[in-house]
């Protein structure tokens, strides 16, 4: 199982937390999430795997946690 955490506006789309069957990589995971929550496609966010931000496609292990965080501008 992979735990996915959604922050900010993304949590309104997908809920704060989701558990998904293990997939091999972040690209696969994001593809799956976009199918499940089409509204995510229009959002801007960064991806972190086990609390480390990533940029390119990253392989995932079972029981890892993936977080999706949008930028905030408010002050």
């Amino acid at each position, binding site marked *: 199982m992979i735990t996915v955490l959604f*922050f*900010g506006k993304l949590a309104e789309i997908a809920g704060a937390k989701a558990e998904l069957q293990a997939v091999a990589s972040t690209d696969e995971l994001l593809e799956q999430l976009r199918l499940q929550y089409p509204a995510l496609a229009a959002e801007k966010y960064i991806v972190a795997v086990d*609390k*480390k931000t990533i940029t390119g496609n990253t392989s995932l292990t079972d029981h890892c946690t993936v977080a999706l965080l*949008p*930028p*905030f*501008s*408010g*002050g």
Partner: protein
Amino acid sequence: MNNDRLYERYQRQLILQGFGAEAQQKLLAANVLVIGAGGLGCPVLQYLVAAGVDEVGIVDDDVVSLSNLHRQVLYNVQMIGRPKVECAVEVLQQLNPQTRFAVYKERLTNKNAATILSRFDVIVDGSDNFATRYLVNDACVLLNKPLVYGAISQYEGQVAVFNVQQNNERSVNYRDLFPHPPKDGEVLNCAEAGVLGVLPGIIGSMMANETIKLITSTGVLLANKLFTYNTLNNQTYELELSKQAETASLIPPTIETLQQTDYKWLCSTTIVVNEIDATAFNQLIAEGTAAIVDVREKDEQPVVTEFSHMQIPLNSLQQHTAWLTEDTIVVFCLSGKRSAQAAKQLAEVFGASKKIYSLKGGIQQWMQQQQTV
């Protein structure tokens, strides 16, 4: 002030183990620039001034409005319509008469950023839009200034310390986290998405804490980290950030290039219409420096004789913007709807070079209020 009074004022932090006189001396010699005197800026300013920071700079071009008061706790109802920087200094100077203030009653722009930022050792970003956030970040990188960052949305906040010198290198900056500004409408601001009043109090206090730690070399900073907090479930999350190869290519190479970079355009900032109430409207009339413009059609009722103004109907506004030479423009119509459109059109033409306001509720509501006063 003699040393006894100094000791008494800061006694509780002087006796603090791991802080003491040495850390206090650093605060008493420090200078910090706070960008934005809003939700985040208020607690940052209060705690930095209370802690004894020698000189505090404040940049803000906004005035106090009623909808600010639920979270901007430096201000009160008497201050509505007055510039935030002036009100903030009034309150803060009473809190600590020793603090020196540098007041910038203007918007931070690509033109003035380097001049203003270069005077200060630490920069704190409590602004409320991406254009300013990217501008501040890039300027801090170019000027080698540490940047204490905080941002909020609805029930969540983020805190980090960017670009701080540690182990002979600079920690990550905002561009390592979010390389490119979001496009128009992709991310909502507080005015559109709402914010719970306590949230900026919590996040702003954390920013003040990081600033004090940075100045006094106390504890561990949120450098190369992003801290997030959710007020609904009290969950915190701390991410490890790393440098990105492309960051350097995204930041203007020199201050001169920064001055030519249009951050507003990069962020294609959604134009938010600044609506003012009758009190603020009357004050602008009394000051006599703003252009007051009726955007209704000629001969529309009621005829306004109470104050002098220009008449430029909304449909011909675009052709007559050259008539508006004043720095502040206030537009009004019957209900406030057409004037909001007019304010938007003017904001597109003038950008940040002028302050543009629309009278909320229109001249109809204004006249009713004048009768009841």
